[in-house]
């Protein structure tokens, strides 16, 4: 249902009211923006020189933020690859015919979906040293992101595999394929095509979650911004703090919006080029799985 079904094509009276609403709405938004700007200007946050520092290579701010972004992308990429591989295995395990595989795998998946990511990361960071194994913040972050997201991705993959028409696997069995052949040659390739948009949406979530490295002291984008602020504080006080935080936030939003747009574009493209005759809607949507940053326990 698209929006216009909720209201009639506006007549002259309604058009006038909408116009009034538009004006009032714009005024409200402008008022809010103006309030923030006035407050910021009152504190001198809008001076050009304060913002120039972000783009000035001599201040080493751009290099620092860039290094932070690279570190963030590095963790996210590694975490995504590992989590996808592990998630696919877990999904296949959960769909197994053997109870001794299915039950433990299901327990693992449900456990990691019920526990906050930060707890998993803390565990990966704090536990190994108690057994005498030193671990870097980077490794802990990657392990935490991988374990947590593999459980989420396992559910995505499972939904993808289950969404494939039953006739596909029946036909494959019919021509004498084995179970693993049906999975690797018939089900997974089709499932991955369907899951791709959701997987990319999950990548956005993972990228956002990598900012938790901030809390355990990994120098990703947010931590870099924070240390820049602390570095400048020695000489300049909080003169540049706000600007650096804004820069970090804008970088996050920029990268994530691009990925989100890509996911949606892919979603549309795949939906259009779908060759299956039944043309039924995908049981997977990008929105369904990215509920508030990370998977949630579905009963």
């Amino acid at each position, binding site marked *: *249902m698209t*929006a216009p*079904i*909720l*209201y*009639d094509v*506006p007549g002259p009276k309604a058009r006038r009211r*909408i116009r009034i*609403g*538009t004006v009032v*709405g*714009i005024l409200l*938004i402008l008022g809010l923006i103006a309030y*923030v700007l006035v*407050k*910021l200007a*009152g*504190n001198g946050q809008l001076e050009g020189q304060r913002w120039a520092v972000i783009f000035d290579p001599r201040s080493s701010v751009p290099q620092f933020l860039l290094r932070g972004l690279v570190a963030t992308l590095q963790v996210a990429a590694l975490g995504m690859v590992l989590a996808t591989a592990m998630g696919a295995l877990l999904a296949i395990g959960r769909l197994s015919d053997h109870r001794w595989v299915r039950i433990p795998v299901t327990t693992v998946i449900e456990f990691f979906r*019920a*526990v*906050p*990511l*930060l*707890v998993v990361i*803390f*565990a990966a960071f*704090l*536990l190994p040293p*108690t057994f005498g194994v030193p671990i870097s913040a980077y490794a802990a972050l990657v392990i935490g992101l991988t374990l947590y997201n593999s459980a989420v991705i396992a559910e995505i993959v499972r939904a993808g595999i289950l969404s494939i028409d039953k006739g596909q696997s029946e036909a494959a069995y019919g021509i004498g394929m084995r179970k693993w052949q049906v999975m690797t040659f018939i089900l997974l390739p089709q499932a991955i095509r369907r899951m791709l948009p959701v997987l990319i949406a999950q990548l*956005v979530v993972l*990228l956002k*979650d*990598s*900012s*938790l490295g*901030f*809390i355990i002291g990994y120098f990703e984008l*947010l931590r870099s911004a924070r240390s820049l602020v602390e570095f400048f504080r020695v000489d300049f006080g909080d003169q540049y*703090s*706000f600007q650096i*935080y804004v820069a*970090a*936030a804008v970088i*996050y*939003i920029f990268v*994530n*919006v691009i990925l*989100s747009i890509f996911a949606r574009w892919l979603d549309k493209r795949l939906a259009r080029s779908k060759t299956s005759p039944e043309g039924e809607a995908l049981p997977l*949507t990008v*929105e*369904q799985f*990215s*509920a*508030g*940053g*990370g998977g*949630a*326990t*579905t*009963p």
Partner: protein
Amino acid sequence: MGFLIDNFGLFVDAMGQTLLISLFAGLLALVLGTILAAMRVSPVPPLRGLATFYVEVFRNTPLTVVFFFIIFGLPQIDTVISPLPGAMLAVGLYTAAFVCEAIRSGINSISAGQAEAARAIGLTFSQSLREVVLPQAFRTVVPPLGNVWIAMVKNTSIAAGFFIPELSALLPRLANAAADELIATLIGVVIAYLLITLPSAYGVSRLEKRAAILR
């Protein structure tokens, strides 16, 4: 095990903080999210634009960054907020975007005939939304909203990085104070989270069955 019993009060206090943040943030997110969803389907373009902008920004910003702006950024516009309300605000504002999307998908799932019928009997936009569309939409969005709620409870753990003694914050704290009891601490924290999320999941599934509309 003895360690957990000795520090039982500590865990209960921490769980209380987590629940407190969750409840108030959840309330804020539900109210704000519903308003945003109504704005996104409204006939007034700037309202639609504003809500879309809000959702896009908050869905693509890490919650940690939102916390940053509430705790360290708001003082720059002369609004100092103490950590606990700050955490509620941060989690609430962030989650509102997801609530909005869940409700909007619910609105979209209501069959067009319902809205057409509402209009045909002369209801205005706000009336048809209030009396016909939203009550049904809320029913269909029980499962996604439940997921958002559970994800939000887990997301409150990020407050640990911003001076709030909630459940996750116990881990680094007790890791320093009682290093050899780390596994016990971990088990305690996980159990405390499960005590919140598992009943929530059960409640959502009960609610889902009761709210389901037979079509």
